[in-house]
């Protein structure tokens, strides 16, 4: 088991390094000079040169990368060109909002999605199954900003319990969490249903019935647990994408999360912030997939045995 975990961890670190290199190169090849943007349209050429020199932007690219990556390892992500604050600080600040929203949205999504998926699978072919799956198609197809706006109009404005904008209090997260969670709930329910149906057709489920187990136990212990691997995979992918910020929902509800931070940074060519942001996104994704890999091994002993 530990061997397996160590292998996955090494893989994770090397992926982050490769991504840092690729991001660095791409951002430096892209058109648009941050210094010119900082100093405005009518800046003097000498002044631009001076600022570039001060920021180390006139050094050879490989030196810049080396510098950046050494600082990165030390925990120094550089400073935002525009907000004049350390990148790490800005990201962590935004992360608080994003992670809180993500956690709420995903807990809602998991409860509803798993429940719907299990019920649909157990009653597959019935009207209930068809009804639940139609709802889930609706949930997947509905764009989150549309759901967000509907929630604002029909719940936020009508009942005046949940604020439609801002997250000064935690109750402000409710509507955004529902808007954001809808799609995930829908996709979890579909994957859960499909995966459970596949397991239901297998021989060992017949064995479980032949043993005279009660049907609830068969569903939860035999079918659901075996159906969990594909579900964990999408849960990992979903949490990864949630933690890297949802630009639209955060914008609609005016939440200063990662999504909003990065969109603003990209628009202003705030290279240190964009680079830091990309590294953050990469790190989150890699970390989540690392956890998912370890979870696979926990759920399915065959995986860690196969790794020997």
């Amino acid at each position, binding site marked *: 088991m530990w061997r397996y975990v160590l292998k996955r961890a090494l893989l994770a670190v090397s992926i982050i390094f490769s991504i840092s290199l690729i991001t660095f190169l791409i951002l430096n090849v892209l058109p648009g000079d941050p210094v010119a943007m900082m100093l405005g349209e009518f800046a003097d050429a000498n002044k631009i040169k001076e600022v570039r020199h001060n920021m180390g932007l006139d050094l050879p690219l490989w030196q810049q990368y080396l510098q950046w990556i050494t600082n990165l390892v030390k925990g120094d992500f550089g400073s935002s060109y525009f907000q004049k604050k350390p990148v790490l600080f800005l990201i962590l600040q935004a992360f608080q909002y994003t992670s809180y929203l993500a956690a709420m949205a995903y807990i809602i999504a998991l409860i509803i999605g798993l429940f719907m998926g299990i019920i649909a699978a157990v009653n597959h*072919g019935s009207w209930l199954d068809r009804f639940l799956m139609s709802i889930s198609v609706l949930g997947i197809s509905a764009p989150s900003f549309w759901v967000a706006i509907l929630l604002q109009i029909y719940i936020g404005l009508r009942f005046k319990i949940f604020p439609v904008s801002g997250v000064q209090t935690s109750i402000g997260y409710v509507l955004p969490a529902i808007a954001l969670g809808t799609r995930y709930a829908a996709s979890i329910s579909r994957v859960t249903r499909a995966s459970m149906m596949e397991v239901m057709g297998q021989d*060992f489920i017949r064995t*479980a019935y032949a043993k005279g187990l*009660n049907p609830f136990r068969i569903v939860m212990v035999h079918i659901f647990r*075996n159906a969990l691997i594909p579900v964990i995979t999408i849960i990992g992918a979903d949490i990864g994408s949630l933690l890297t910020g949802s630009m639209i929902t955060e914008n609609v509800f005016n939440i200063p999360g990662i999504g909003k931070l990065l969109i603003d940074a990209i628009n202003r060519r705030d290279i240190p912030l964009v680079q830091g942001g990309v590294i953050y996104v990469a790190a989150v994704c890699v970390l989540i997939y690392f956890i998912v890999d370890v979870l696979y091994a926990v759920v399915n002993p*065959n995986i860690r045995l196969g790794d020997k």
Partner: protein
Amino acid sequence: MSENTEKNILEIRDLNVDLFTERGVLPVLSHINLNLKEGEILGVVGESGCGKSMLASAIMGLVDKPGKITGGEILFDSEDLVSAGKKRLQEIRGNAISMIFQEPMTSLNPLMSCGKQITEAILAHKKISRKEASSQALEMIRSVGIPMPEKIFDAIPSRLSGGMRQRIMIAMALCLKPRLLICDEPTTALDVTVQAQILYLIKKLRKEFKTTVIFISHDMGVISQMSDRVAVMYAGQVVEIADKKDIFSMPSHPYTVGLEAAIPKMDSDTDKLESIPGSVPMLYELPEGCLFSTRCSHCTDQCKLKRPELTILDEAYPDHLVRCINKDCLAVQHSS
């Protein structure tokens, strides 16, 4: 056969199972009549698709969509299983009647340790503590001849060979000392040496536990080793049923004769393998008359008109029933 042959533990009366499909209602099992005496081993033999496994499912109460039991009775200890409620069937399954399946590789839950899977079966039917159930399960693993039972108890099935997994299945099926054990091709997926061990084990344990057995196989050799009586099935019907020695010494239905001719013999000179021409008719294109008429070399015009009944062939052998009207061909078989 044992002495107390009077009591029937299982009586199947005129059982019909139909498949409800887009091609219409297809009879998988039609007019099955079988009696099973306490303590005997009934062999059920037939080609793939003849309804052997469906018969097992029907007895277990596990006929699932699109299949449905559309008529008849399955009397287990005089209790009708066809009309029994779900809860009652659940009580019986794995407890009074249990089953061993064909595919040991896929019939065990891949994520659960072998010991746990047996413990779970015990706990489903007995009100005892988990610890007691575990120790009973361990004892059961020991009794099916698995080396290092403590170690295997905690192993997940993928660590075990096919033969070992089938032993676990046997342990699971017998852990509650069922009165009836259904073995659905238990050795088909195993190689021959392991097959012999497993067959030996089933025979030994069923004697120990005084279990009545229905042994399903397509292999006449295995059937002859295992059974006291043999039922030959064809296209969802029992075409011949008799004591083992009668089935092998004087097979009477042309299909049984064909099956036996198809067993390769060591002492014959020919290199040719005998076979029955054609294949089992599809359920949606069953012939009007005798189901075997399309492949039978003794088929007459009479045979194509009406489905024959299962009847006693010779008053001297009241337990030998055959579903064939062609007395001529039967007579030929008897004299040969």
